[in-house]
Structures are given as C-alpha cells and as structure tokens.
C-alpha cells in the first residue's frame, strides 16, 4: 500500500487523535491496520483494555502507555501466581481495575495487584464470592481508592469494611450489595470516616434504622440504594428526609411518605406498598423526578400514574411492571405529558392494548426501551404503532402470543437501531418474521427467541446476518438442527452467551461448528442437548473463553466424557452446573481443582 508521507503533514498527530476519538470500537480495529502512524495513534490513545490472557499483559502494557483502565474480569487464568509473575515487570499506572468474578484470586494476589497499580482509584471485585476480610485488607493497601464495588463478596464482614474505610478515606462510591455479613457497625464507621461518600449501595443487607441514621449524616451523598433491607422502616426514612442535603437517587423497597427530598431525581420503590394518594403527594413534592420505578406496587392505578405524569414532566424512566390496574388511559397521559420519556416498562400490565401503544408511537419519539413482557393485549397493530418510535433500542415482547409475522415486519422495517429484542415464547410468528428482524435490525446484539415453536432451520439460519449478536437464547427450539446452529456459529462471531437448552435435534455437526467458530463464547447452556462425548470435549477444550457451563441431562455423554471435557477447561471455569450424581462419579482431583480455581458448582 503506497503510504504517502504527506498524511502526517496534512493531518498532524493531534488531529489524527481527534479523528480517532470519533470512531466506534469496531472501526478502531480497522483503523490500526491502516498504517504505522495510525497504529501509533491507536496505541497512544487507548486508555482501556479488556484482556483474556493475563500472560500478555506486560507486553500490552508497554504497547499502550496511556492505559488507565484494565478489565481482567474475563481472564480465566488469573490467580495469585499469575499476579506474582506480573509483579516482576514493575508498577503500572492503572487507575481502574475490574476484577469481577476473579474467583481464583486471593488476598495475596490482590494485595500484589493493589501495590502494583499505583494510583488505583477504581476497583471492582463484585461476585468474587470467596472474598472476605483478608481480601478487603489487601485492597485497603491502595490508599487512593475512590470507588469500590464489592457486590456479593459473601464473607466480607464489618472488619473488612473497616479496613477499607480506614485505608481509603477518600472513598466516594462503594457498593456492598449482598455482603450479607455487614451490619450497622460497619455502615456507621463508613459514614463516620468517609465523609466524601457520594454513592452507597446497601441493598439486601441486614441493617436497621440505626444505619440510616448514620447514612443521613453524609453531607455529599447523592445516590443511595437500599433495596430489600427488611429491617429498615419509615422511621429510618425519616432520618433520610431530615439529613442528606444532596441526595438525588434513592432505591427503596417500601415507602411511606417522602416529601422533604425535593431535589430527588431518581426513586426506585419497586415492590413497595404504595397507594395512589402517596404517589400523588410524592410526585407533587418531588417535581424534578426523572426516573421512577414503582414496579410490583399493587396499589398503583391510573389515578396515581396520571397524577405522576402531570407533576413530573421531565420523566425519562418509568417502571410500572406488575402494576396490573394501569390501563391505556394512564399510558396515553404519560406519553402526552412526558415527551422525553426514554424507558417505559409495562411488564404484566394486562390491560394495555393497541390504544395505549398508539399514543406512545405518536408522542414518545425519544423512547429507547419498551418492556411489554406478558402484555397479551399487544398485537400486530400495536407493534405497528410501536415501530414509529424509531429510536427504540430495547424491546421486550416476551409472552405476547398475539404477535405474528406481520408485526415482526413492522419492527424489522422501522426499528433499525434495535439492540435488544426479547421474543420469549412468542409462538405466533415464524421463520419469515425472524428473517425480517434479521434483515432489518442489523445492530441487534441480544436476541431471545426461546420457545418460539414455529421457528425452523430456515429462520434460524437468517440470524447469521446479525454480526453484532452476543447474546442468543434458542431454548426449546425443537425444530432446529445442526445446520441451523452451524449457520449461527458461522455468522455471529461475537457470540458470548448461548442458550441451547432442550434443543434436542441439534446433532454433533452443529456443536463441531460451534467449537470452531464461536471462540468468544463465554457462557453456554447445553442442558438436554444430544451432544456426544467427543463433541462435548471439543467444545470444552476449543472454546477458550468459556467460563459458565450448564451440563445437566446430557443423555449421550458418559461419565468419562464429562471428566475429559471438564479437565479440558477446568482452569477457566467459574460456574458449572452438573448432574448431581456426577458428584460421586467425577474424580475428586478434578473437583478439588475446580474448587481451588474458584469455580462454583451447582449440582442439579
């Protein structure tokens, strides 16, 4: 390729960097292949990286000098020793570290990492279920930490939290969701020592009103998530109202009366006992609300929703899931007064018909997400109206059985930006509908067509046109065979999640194709599939990214086959679902090895 030396004389490097800044990730891949200069720009501008093989990290770090964010959450081989080997290459200037699900990592490795990354500010160790106080103490070595996510670190107790709190006093964001051992004492200390805290997630903790009293003293708190804290009640909320001057976002599981929080922007009170009157008082006092969730609030009816829509015109997100008494009238009111609506969730609102959807199609031009799961009032005409919302990114139509190919044509022809489409158990449409979707919605990355019984290979083969597809659920499609799966595997190279449960007619040819082409597959469900020993071994050994596997009820797989397959991938598995009797049939070494690598086995 004749590279003109003038390209740099015309476009200086900083201009190139600016151009590069406008590109989206797939284009950047192509960009860096253009020339050495372009490649240089790419490596200089790159700030974040997500890697699969930790062995290459040192080389990558030297290639990309301005890297600040490192995602190791998909690294299957990350463990203490890998980290110790890394340590010999010297310190790095990573600011943000994602270690989510790094279950093989322990305190020693974590401490090494924390020391290695000087200036570490953000760390995510969510879903590392083995993490506890020792790991927390290791993290607290990074004194500059500002954001910590520790969701589901099951053994983390107050002591560990205290270590983090005392070690990193600049904390501004911490998430302790599902850290079930944390009690009032830990939260109290957190609130006493970290006055800069802006965001706090204490969902599912066994904390009481005392904690809320401490939390209310935080001067800068903006976001508070306390979903499902069963021991907190209205008295606790009273503290919140009297304190927390800058609170903007609250997630709760109950609500009595919030009036004082006038500047509240986001409120999630899913599952709370809310009546129309309290919703009215709430909306009249918190007029700047932009996001509100009242899902599963059985007391909410049209009156409340209409009042809410009139009072809070800036509403962007509205979650009315399982509010069964909401009808078209409320939806029309919302569509007419809240023109900026972006997200609307109407799951299980059975009274919604095409009338409500008509006003949505007319007024809500900014609508990006619409959840109509289990709204059996939705039909083809309704979909025609919805398709007018051309900015729609996510559409959920699960259990809407009245939809046929006709409706699918409307969606496929107009909603070209669609990223996510859920058609779970929509038995009414067939291959033609799926073909229309595959033709029209090219950027789809999440498609759920489980239990759509009409679909056959002809339809499923069309899916291969969706290059960006990463999440595909084909559960219970009895009519598809190896040919269909092979086509999907061939076309959708980015496939990350694949659910093939109860696809009984897929033969080994399909799985062989999968083993060769779907190299990005991370999670796979093969329950009730007729996969053979060899095909399973192939899959498990070739799919080098696979981390989460469901292998229940495989009739053609023997114990030896499972053993071989699991041995082939045991050092990268994080989660495994196995047939319970195998517990006593698989070799104990294998099980020990899996356990040592932090793999969680569910016996079914």
């Amino acid at each position, binding site marked *: 390729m004749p590279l003109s030396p003038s390209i740099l004389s015309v476009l200086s490097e900083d201009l190139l960097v600016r151009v590069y800044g406008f590109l989206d990730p797939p284009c950047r891949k192509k960009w860096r292949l253009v020339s050495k200069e372009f490649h240089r720009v790419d490596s200089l501008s790159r700030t974040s990286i997500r890697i699969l093989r930790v062995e290459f990290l040192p080389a990558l770090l030297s290639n990309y000098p301005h890297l600040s964010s490192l995602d190791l959450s998909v690294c299957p081989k990350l463990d203490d020793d890998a980290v110790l080997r890394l340590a010999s290459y010297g310190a790095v200037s990573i600011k943000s570290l994602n270690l989510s699900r790094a279950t093989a990592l322990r305190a020693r490795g974590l401490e090494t990492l924390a020391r290695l990354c000087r200036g570490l500010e953000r760390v995510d160790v969510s879903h590392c279920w083995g993490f506890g106080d020792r790991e927390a103490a290791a993290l607290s070595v990074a004194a500059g930490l500002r954001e910590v996510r520790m969701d589901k670190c099951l053994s983390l107790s107050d002591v*560990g939290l205290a270590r983090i709190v005392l070690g990193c006093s600049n904390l501004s964001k911490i998430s302790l969701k599902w850290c079930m051992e944390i009690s009032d004492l830990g939260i109290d200390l957190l609130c006493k020592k970290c006055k800069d805290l802006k965001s706090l997630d204490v969902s599912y903790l066994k904390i009481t009103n005392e904690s809320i009293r401490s939390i209310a003293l935080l001067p800068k708190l903006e976001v508070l998530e306390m979903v499902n804290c069963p021991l907190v009640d209205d008295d606790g909320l009273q503290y919140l109202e009297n304190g927390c001057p800058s609170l903007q976002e609250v997630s709760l599981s109950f609500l009595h009366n919030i009036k004082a929080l006038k500047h509240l922007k986001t409120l999630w009170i899913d599952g709370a006992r809310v009546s129309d009157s309290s919703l009215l008082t709430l909306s009249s006092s918190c007029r700047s609300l932009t996001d509100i969730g009242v899902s599963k609030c059985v007391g909410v009816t049209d009156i409340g929703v209409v009042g809410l829509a009139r009072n809070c015109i800036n509403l962007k997100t509205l979650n009315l899931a399982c509010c069964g008494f909401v009808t078209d009238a409320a939806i029309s009111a919302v569509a007419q007064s809240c023109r900026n609506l972006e997200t609307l969730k109407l799951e299980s609102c059975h009274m919604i018909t095409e009338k409500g959807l008509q006003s949505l199609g007319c007024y809500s031009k900014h609508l990006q997400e619409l959840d109509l799961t289990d709204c059996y009032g939705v039909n083809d005409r309704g979909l025609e109206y919805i398709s007018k919302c051309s900015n729609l990114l996510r559409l959920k139509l699960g259990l809407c059985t009245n939809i046929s190919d006709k409706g699918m044509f409307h969606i496929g022809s107009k909603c070209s930006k669609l990223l996510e489409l859920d058609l779970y158990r929509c038995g009414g449409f067939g291959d033609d509908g799926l073909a229309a979707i595959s033709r029209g919605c090219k950027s789809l990355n999440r498609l759920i067509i489980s239990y759509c019984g009409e679909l056959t290979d002809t339809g499923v083969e069309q899916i291969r046109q969706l290059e960006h597809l990463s999440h595909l659920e084909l559960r219970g499609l009895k009519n598809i065979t190896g040919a269909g799966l092979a086509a999907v595997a061939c076309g959708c190279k980015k496939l990350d999640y694949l659910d093939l449960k109860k696809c009984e007619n897929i033969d080994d040819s399909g799985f062989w194709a999968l083993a060769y082409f779907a190299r990005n597959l991370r999670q796979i469900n093969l329950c009730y599939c007729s996969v053979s020993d060899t095909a399973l071994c192939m899959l498990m050994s*070739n799919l080098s990214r696979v981390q989460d596997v469901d292998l229940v009820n495989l009739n053609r797989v023997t114990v030896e086959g499972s*053993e071989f397959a699991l041995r082939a991938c045991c050092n990268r598995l994080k989660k495994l679902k196995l047939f319970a009797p195998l517990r006593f049939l698989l070799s104990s070494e294998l099980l020990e090895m899996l356990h040592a690598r932090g793999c969680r086995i569910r016996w079914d």
Partner: protein
Amino acid sequence: MRTKNMETGEDDLCKNNWGSASILDYEMAREDEEEEPNLHVFKASSSCQDNNNNGGQASVDFLQGVKAQAWDPRTMLCNLSFMEHKIHELQGLVHLILGRNGQLQDEQRQLVTADLTSIIIQLISTAGSLLPSVKHHNMSTTAPGSAFHEMKNEDDAEEGENLPPGSYEIKQLEKEEILAPHTNFCTICGKGFKRDANLRMHMRGHGDEYKTPAALAKPTKETVPGSEQMLVKRYSCPFPGCKRNKDHKKFQPLKTILCVKNHYKRTHCDKSFTCSRCHTKKFSVIADLKTHEKHCGKNKWLCSCGTTFSRKDKLFGHIALFQGHTPAIPLEETKPSAAASSQRGSSGCGNNNNNAGMVSFNLGSATNANQETSQPCFMDGKISFEESFSPLSSDTCNFGGFPRSIFDDSFQMLISSACGCSPINGGDGSVSDTSV
C-alpha cells in the same frame, strides 16, 4: 385504713432521709404483720408516761435528732411509751365506734377519721424512730443474700460507711478460721457446710424434729429486733500491716465474714486457680475464676494496637475514636481457604506428576468425592502449614505447573490438527474484546 395511713407515715420517713427506701419498706411490712404482738409488748412496758404527746411535728424533730445521736436505750423507751399512749387513745376511739354500732353521723365520722389519722401518723413516726437501731441490728446479722451483695461493694463501703471508731464491735478471725472450707458443722455427724441454709437442709435427714418450720427457718428471723445485740459487728483482717487490720492507722473494717474471707484470699494468699482456657490468668477465689472463665477467650475483637475487646461494637467505637487504628483480621479465619486451596493444588500436583502422560482417572472414588463436607477438617490440618506460608514457598505450588493445563493445550491441538480444520476466527487472541 391502717395500711393506708402506714403509707403516709412512710412518706414522712422518706422525707427525713432515713436510709434507703427499700429497707424501710421491708421494716414497714414486717411491722404491719407483727402489729398485734407488738402492741401487747408496748402495753406491757408502760412504765414511763412521757409528755411526748405533743403531735406529729415534734416527734419528727425528735426523729431527726435521733439520726445524729448515737443509740440510746432511754430515748427508745420514751418512744415506746409514747406509742403505747397513742395506741390506748386509738383503742378508745375504736371502742366508741363499736359502741354505737357504726351508726355515726357524717360529721362525726369525719371527726373520728381525722383523729384516727393524726394518731396513726404520730404512732408510725414514733415507731419509725426505732428504726435506726433495728437497721443496725439487722446488718450485723445479715442474711447470706445481703452479705453477698455487700461483698461486691466491698471497696465502695469505705465511702458509704463512716462509722465512728467506737460505734461497732471489732472481731478478728484467725487465718485458719478464715481459710477453713466450712463454717457450719452438723452437731450430729460433724459434716461441714459453707452455708447455714445448707446445714439446715442437711439436718432434715437426721430426724423429723429438724423438719418443722421453726427448725428450718432462718435463725435471724427469730431474734426480735433490738432485743439483744446492741453493737454493730465489723471485722478485721488478721494480716499485720494490712489496711483492713485493726492496728492500721487508717483502718477500714470489713463488713461481713464473707468479705473477710474473700479479702484474705485475694490479697494475702497464693493465686492457685489458673484459667483452663488462657492458662495465664490466676485467681485465689474460685468464684473469680468462674467469672473470668465465662468471658475468657471471647476477646476476639482485636485492634491493630493490640487491644482486645469482647464486643465488636466496643472495637468499632475504639477505631472510630483513634486515628490510625484498624481492626486486625484473625489469622485462622480467612487464610485457611486460600492456603488450603493452593495446598490442595500442590498436593494434587504431587500426586499427578507420576502419571502426567497417561491419563488414568480414578472414577467413582466415593470417599473423596464429597469434598465439600470433608473440607473443614482438611483446613484444620493445614493450619500449621500456613503459618510458615511465605511468598517464596508459594512459588512451588503454582497452578501453572499443574499438568492438567498441559493436557488441556495438547488436547486442544490434537483435536484441531486431527480434524484438519483451522479455526476461522482467531478468537484466542490476547485482545479479544475491544472496549475502548
């Protein structure tokens, strides 16, 4: 009627600040029960008719005088006679009412009740003046329960009690007497007991005559208050030079025998009881050991400064208070899982090194298969190992050297080469996902 007025009388007494209300309550109740016999006693001892019948106010003043005054039998006698006089008056009134068969006019009834009230108030206040003596008497012959209570406040007693030197009788037990295991002995079989109540229980076995309520009753109950023992008893420690010894310049007497025993054992004896849990704390009184053992080992909340706490909230309070203090993480808690897992890996490595090439699996080994349940004891066994856990030694048990990973890669190559079909997408690349 009577009890009601008793209460008002009690109020008066409280105003006069005579000791604790509880003792007064007790005394009042007792007097209430024994009203009738007492009245007879008062009647019988009508020798000194005094001019003390000048109303409640005077008697109250008089009572206040009693407090400062030391115990005087003469004034006591006066009080008694005054009470007798008043009781006679009361009797007359009641007779009057009886004579009219209770058929009184309203005004008359009011008059009578008013009279009665004033008389009863006087009566009670005068009776109350007997109390200081009764109280002291009671203290010297304390029941075991109250003695125990006093023992706990042994040190506080110094401030609370300021008895003038001559106002009590000093007893000094000998060392042998103090250290004797038993103080109460059965007169029949000679068996010793620590408590007289236990002795009485034991005596029941010696015959029916010991089973009567009188024999089983507390000996202290039998003595009439203020009848014999006039002086308060206090105790001195036999150890020369001790502050509790009567020859000491600032002598502070001990209140009860129990106090003497505990004091002597704690300060002048060897601490022979060692805590069976920590093996460091020693005690000379077995009760102290038991109290300690209840809490020993529960100080599991440790601060980085070395202070231990029995309660988590105390530790957190400490941490919140002092800058730079952090809670320490006990070694045993989290380390075993990490260490044991790598240990497991290394042990598996050792086992497998022999047959790395030939893949032979021991399928169906049911003993080890249930590894999750057998895991705790596995960890327990490894605690000693992990204490010598150093970064150097850990390099030997890395997972990279684990033969399965070799097997994994070779297996993969084997399949792909056997099939002759090279993967189209090199998804195996290091930078697999570009998220910028």
